[in-house]
C-alpha cells in the first residue's frame, strides 16, 4: 500500500525507516516511519494521543539524545545531510523548536529571550545588530507593537498567547531552516490560537514548518500536507485537502469523522 507521498525534488527533511522505543521494551513508540517533508510548507502530524506524533517530532532535532533510555533507529536527512553526522549544536541551530506550553526563560527579559539562542551559543554581536534581530523577529511574530516599550520586562509578564509568540520569535531569531512545533496552541484560548495559526501561515514562505497537533480542524485550516499516525505507525500521508476529502485508509477516515481520538 502506498501510504506515503514522494516529494522527490529537494525535500527539506527526509525520514527513513525510523523506529523509536522508550526503555528496554520491544514496543515501539514510532515504527518504521518513512516520509519526505516539503520545503516552505506546513506539514501537520496528527493522531490520537499516544500515537507517537510528538516522539517523531522530537527525533528530528535529536531531542531524544538527552534521555539515554530513548532508542532511535533509522535515518533522518536535513537538506540531504544525515543529521546524526552533524553535531547536535549545529543541527539544533538549523532546526528551531516551539513547545506545547509557552516556556520563555523566566530569568530573562523579553529582549534577552529573543536573542537567547545567540547568548546560549556564545555568539557575540554588536548592540545594533542585536537590536535589529530583536526588532525583526518580534515584527515577524506580530509582537513588536505590543512589547516594544517593555522589552526589558520579564517575558513571563506576557499573556499565554504572547508568550507563545515570543517563543516562536526566539526560534526564528536564530534563522533556522525548519521550525518544529509540538501542539503549540493546546494551552491557548481560541483568539490567541488563531493569531498563532495566522502567523504560521505567514512564516511558511521563509521556513519549513512541521506542526504536531491533536486538533484536526487546525491541521485542515493551515497545513499543506498531513500525516496521520496511529499506535506508532504512519497510516497515511498526503496533501491535506486530499486527505480530508478523500482519505485512502479506513482508520484515517474513522479518525477524521470523529469515531475515535
Amino acid at each position: 500500500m502506498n501510504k506515503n507521498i514522494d516529494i522527490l525534488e529537494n525535500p527539506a527533511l527526509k525520514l527513513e525507516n525510523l523506529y523509536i522505543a522508550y526503555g528496554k521494551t520491544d514496543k515501539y513508540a514510532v515504527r518504521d516511519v518513512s516520509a519526505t517533508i516539503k520545503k516552505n510548507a506546513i506539514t501537520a502530524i496528527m493522531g490520537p494521543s499516544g500515537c507517537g506524533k510528538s516522539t517523531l517530532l522530537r527525533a528530528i532535532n535529536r531531542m531524544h539524545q538527552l534521555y539515554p533510555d530513548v532508542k532511535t533507529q533509522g535515518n533522518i536527512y536535513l537538506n540531504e545531510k544525515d543529521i546524526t553526522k552533524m553535531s547536535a549544536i549545529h543541527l539544533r541551530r538549523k532546526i528551531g523548536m516551539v513547545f506545547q506550553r509557552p516556556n520563555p526563560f523566566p530569568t530573562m527579559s523579553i529582549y534577552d529571550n529573543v536573542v537567547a539562542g545567540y547568548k546560549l551559543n556564545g555568539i557575540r554581536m554588536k548592540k545594533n545588530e542585536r537590536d535589529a534581530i530583536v526588532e525583526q523577529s518580534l515584527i515577524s511574530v506580530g509582537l513588536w507593537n505590543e512589547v516594544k516599550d517593555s522589552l526589558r520586562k520579564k517575558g513571563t509578564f506576557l499573556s499565554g498567547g504572547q508568550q507563545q509568540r515570543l517563543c516562536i520569535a526566539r526560534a526564528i531569531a536564530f534563522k533556522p531552516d525548519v521550525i518544529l512545533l509540538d501542539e503549540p496552541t493546546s494551552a491557548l484560548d481560541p483568539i490567541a490560537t488563531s493569531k498563532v495559526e495566522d502567523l504560521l501561515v505567514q512564516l511558511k514562505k521563509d521556513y519549513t514548518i512541521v506542526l504536531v497537533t491533536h486538533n484536526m480542524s487546525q491541521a485542515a485550516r493551515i497545513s499543506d500536507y498531513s500525516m496521520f499516525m496511529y499506535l506508532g505507525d504512519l497510516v497515511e500521508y498526503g496533501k491535506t485537502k486530499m486527505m480530508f476529502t478523500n482519505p485512502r485508509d479506513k482508520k484515517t477516515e474513522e479518525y477524521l469523522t470523529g469515531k475515535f481520538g
Partner: protein
Amino acid sequence: MGQKNNKKMETLKLKDNSAYRTSKDKVFLVGVIIVSIITISPIVLIIGKLVWEGIGQINFSFFTETTPSTFEAMTAVANNEVIPGGIVNGILGTLLIVGLASVIAIPIGILVGLFLYENQQSRYAGLIRSLSDILQGVPSIVLGLIAYLWVVKNIVHGYSALAGSVALAIMMLPLIIRSTEETMKMIPETLKEAALALGVPYYKVIARVLIPSGFSGLATGILLSVSRILGETAPLMLTTLGNPMVNWDITAPTSAVPLLIWNFYNDPNMLSLIWSSSLFLMGFVLTLNIISKRIVAKI
C-alpha cells in the same frame, strides 16, 4: 524578500564554535565528577578508619563491662594486650538519656505538629512555626548551657541525666514538630472529614485516623531525630558530666557513649577504645538512619 537575503548573510557570518564549546562542556562534566568523588570520599575514609582501628576491640566484654581505669588500660597497653573492660556504662547511659529525651519530646512534638496542622493560616501558628525553625538552628552547645542553667543549677542542683535529656529534647522537638506537620498535610483531607462527619469526637479522629495513617511518616521523623541526637557530645559535657559506673538515677551524673569517646581521647592510655566506641556509635546512628529511610521507601 529582504528578510530572505538577510537570513543567508546571517548564517554565513556565524563562526562554527561548536568544537570549542563541546570540549568546554566535557571538561566541566569531568570536573563535576572529580569534585563529587572528592566530596564523598571522607565518608569512605572515616568508616574505613573506624572499622580498621576499632573492630579488634569489639568483643563480648565491650558490651557488658564498665570502662577500665587509666591504670588498667596502661598495664594492658604495656603488655600488648587488649584493653579490658567495655563501655556498658556509656551504652546504658545513652539509652537512659536519649530515652528520657524521647519521652519528653515525642508527645509534645506530635501535639504541637497537630496544632500547626489544625491552624495552618493563623498568625499565632505562624509564630510557633518560626520559633520552632529558630530552635532547630540553635547550636547544641547553647542548648547545653540552657539545660545547665535550668536543670543543673535550679532543679536537680547537680549534674544529671535529666539535664542532658532536656538539652537533647529541645534539639529533637523542632524536628518532630516539622515532620508531624508535614506528614499530616499529606493525609487526604477527605479521610479526616469522613470520620468527623460520622460524629466521631476529634481526639478519636487523631488517635484512630490521623496518627495510624501517618504512622510511617511520624516514625521516620522520630527515628531521624533520635539518630541526630545520639552522637551529641557538647551539650552532655555541660549537663550529665559522665560516670564510670552504670547509673539509672535520672538525677545523678550519667555517662554516654560520645562522652566516653571524649574521655578516651583525652587519656593517651585509652587510645584503642576510641575507635571501637566510635565504630559502635556510628553503626548505631547509621542503622537508625537506614531503617528510617527504609520506612520512607515503603510508603
